[in-house]
């Protein structure tokens, strides 16, 4: 019992970056060992096909039932997120650098009461049980936010770009940045560099304006 408690305590600490290599490594190893691939965006195509999109485009006419295993990986990821969020994250914080807090506060400086405090930044921009009093400016992942223009762009616009872009590029962060580069595929390296070009354009050029839309 005491051992379980200490395991719980260790896992509840913020994880260091090198734990990322272990997490990703174990995930990739087992998926390859089972004869599969690591690539989560492929599920979007499967979900479209399962909803009958094959009637509209040959792209969705494939044996989607053979992709059920990948949907199970996604389902497992949902459970994993639930367990980590509910039982293993006592502070619900993103332990970002002070520099990042300063630059985020620069975006929201004209909105009173919306400043983030270093060391107390919530893990995602949404109210949680531990941090219910998040400033409205940073309340992005909620149903209330969805019904504002700003939130609509972030939730629906972002989702659309992810879904369109990942299939167009033939993979996402797991498919290209991990699986593809690990297989030393040049196209995957080009894709990941392009992810960063797109990300830099968004985060420097558009994101500050989108966040500042007042409605």
């Amino acid at each position, binding site marked *: 019992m005491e051992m379980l408690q200490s395991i719980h305590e260790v896992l509840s600490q913020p994880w260091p970056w090198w734990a990322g290599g272990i997490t990703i490594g174990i995930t990739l190893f087992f998926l390859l060992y089972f004869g599969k691939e690591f690539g989560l965006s492929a599920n979007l195509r499967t979900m479209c096909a399962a909803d009958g999109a094959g009637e509209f485009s040959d792209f969705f006419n494939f044996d989607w039932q053979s992709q*059920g295993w990948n949907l*199970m990986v996604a389902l497992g990821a949902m459970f994993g997120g639930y367990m980590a969020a509910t039982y293993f994250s006592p502070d619900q914080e993103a332990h970002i650098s002070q520099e990042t807090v300063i630059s985020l506060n620069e975006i929201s400086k004209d909105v009173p009461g919306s400043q983030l405090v270093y060391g107390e930044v919530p893990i995602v921009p949404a109210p949680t049980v531990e941090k219910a009093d998040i400033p409205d400016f940073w309340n992005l992942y909620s149903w209330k936010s969805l019904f504002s223009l700003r939130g609509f762009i972030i939730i629906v616009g972002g989702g659309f770009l992810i879904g*369109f872009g990942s299939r167009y590029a033939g993979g996402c962060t797991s498919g290209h940045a991990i699986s593809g580069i690990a297989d030393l595929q040049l196209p995957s390296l080009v894709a990941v*560099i392009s*992810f960063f070009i797109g990300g830099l354009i968004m985060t420097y050029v558009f994101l500050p304006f989108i966040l500042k839309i007042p409605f």
Partner: protein
Amino acid sequence: MKFFKYIMVGFLFGFGAYKLEMISFFRIYEMFHFQDFHMYGIIITGITFGIIITQLFKLGFVKTSKGEQKTFNPKAHTWPRYIIGGIIFGMGWALTGVCSGMMFVLMGSGYTVFGVFIAAAMLGTFVYGMVRKHIPH
């Protein structure tokens, strides 16, 4: 039962992704502003282990659970799709702070509005399927 092992692998990945703050909008913002090593540390160690593991399978040191040689599909060397598609994906990644794996983790973590995000992502994939013959690959 044959699906249980995949749920377990996904569970481990989702658990780790949450604890590593890979699901955090703020972490993704920080990464794109080069303000901390955290996300780069995850990517670099992930790729390092990934290369070792992939080569072990490719060179035949490790076989699949059925005892077979794992095969990998080389990606076609046509560039527009990786560049244009990649930029579109990257813009979505930085806008919401979420990629296609993390949307499932967030949904499970209790941010139910990600049901709408996933639906929007399916719409994006659907639209791609409709227009793919008319855009450069």
